[in-house]
């Protein structure tokens, strides 16, 4: 029996807890290695060969290659780690949020300048309407 998680009913949110830390360990260690330029150079020269050094799952590996940012979080990635892969690709935090929310950079930036996403309708799964949010 796992622990009951009182945060599972928060919509649009992946809480990076100890279970996800376990599942995502090698994926996250790969991502953080890209903090250093010398590693980015090796990765960018041959992504597949670089990924061979990290014993992540086949799905995690493919999701890295696909740059499916939301899926990376669903399978154990943490945003502070996946953002290093994004940075390698020239994508900053705000642009990454534009991708993860499906809003695109301009609409997301505009929302932030106008005060951010309202918590109204965004606290519980049963009140969350994804289309309405974007």
């Amino acid at each position, binding site marked *: 029996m796992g622990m009951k998680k*009182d*945060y599972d009913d*928060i*919509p*649009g*949110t*992946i*809480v*990076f*807890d*100890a279970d996800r*830390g376990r599942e*995502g*360990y090698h994926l*996250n*260690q790969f991502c*953080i290695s*890209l*903090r*250093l*330029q010398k590693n980015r150079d090796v990765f960018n020269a041959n992504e597949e060969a670089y990924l061979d050094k990290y014993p992540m799952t086949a799905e995690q590996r493919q999701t890295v290659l696909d740059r499916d940012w*939301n899926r990376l*979080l669903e399978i154990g990635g*943490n*945003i*502070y*780690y996946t*953002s*290093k892969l994004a*940075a*390698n690709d020239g994508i900053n*935090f*705000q642009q*990454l*949020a534009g991708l*993860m*929310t*499906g809003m695109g950079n301009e609409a*997301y930036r505009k*929302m*932030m*300048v106008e*005060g*951010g*996403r*309202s*918590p109204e309708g*965004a*606290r*519980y799964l049963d009140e969350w309407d*994804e289309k309405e*949010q974007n």
Partner: protein
Amino acid sequence: MARITAGVGCSHVPAIGVAMDTGHTEDDYWKPCFAGFEKSREWMKKANPDVVFLVYNDHCTAFDASCIPTFALGCAAEFKPADEGWGPRPVPVVKNHQKMASHVAQSLILDEFDLTIMNEMEVDHGLTVPLSVMYGQHGIEDEWPAQVIPLAVNVVQYPAPTGNRCYNLGKAIRRAIESYDEDLNVVIFGTGGMSHQLQYKRAGLINKEWDIAFLDRLTSDPVGLSQMPHVEYLREAGSEGVEMVMWHIMRGALDEDVTEVHRHYHVPASNTAVGHIILENTTS
């Protein structure tokens, strides 16, 4: 005897550091964010602490997933600004008050807070951005006006330490500092927050009402505020809003009655609500 005279709560958004390092603080986007720190810099000059005890979180820089200490105290002689993927920030090396840090480490462990001791550590934007906003821009050749004791708190992998634990750690830090036998003025920083969510489909969440209430209660009801469960931070202030537990460490190190001398709140800095408060002890 060393004494804690004041506490500072302050966001540590990396984009704030980038804006300062690249000369964009006067842009329309950034101007209102930085305007709220003008008074803070004057206050820092007057307060002139010998030591800043700086509570922050590392962002997978000093600690990757291989080692995740809940509380890690910087005991090295100095801490270099780290390369977080776009080169180290062009700011001074952070110099520790190493004797006080080792005294605090020993005192806290005997006070039953089982810290990790860091004798080698680089520091990231979580530590250097609050120094930059409070002291203004300082270049690589320059020095920070105070020595800095860093305390890194895990808020990246859930669960972060509870607000209650943090508040009580703040009290223990005060006991440690007040038992240090040298007449030094210490200001404690609690950093991070305020409401923000960087990840997944709900990214961009900002809860101004909640943030303002947090700032209000930080002054008036610190004990009650420290009892807030993690799920409320996650739900109301966003998944990364749980960083706010670090402010309880700062608050716990102050008197129960404090004077709020300054406050600033601004949305947005990149994905984040910027919050800032200065609280002075009434007894010291």
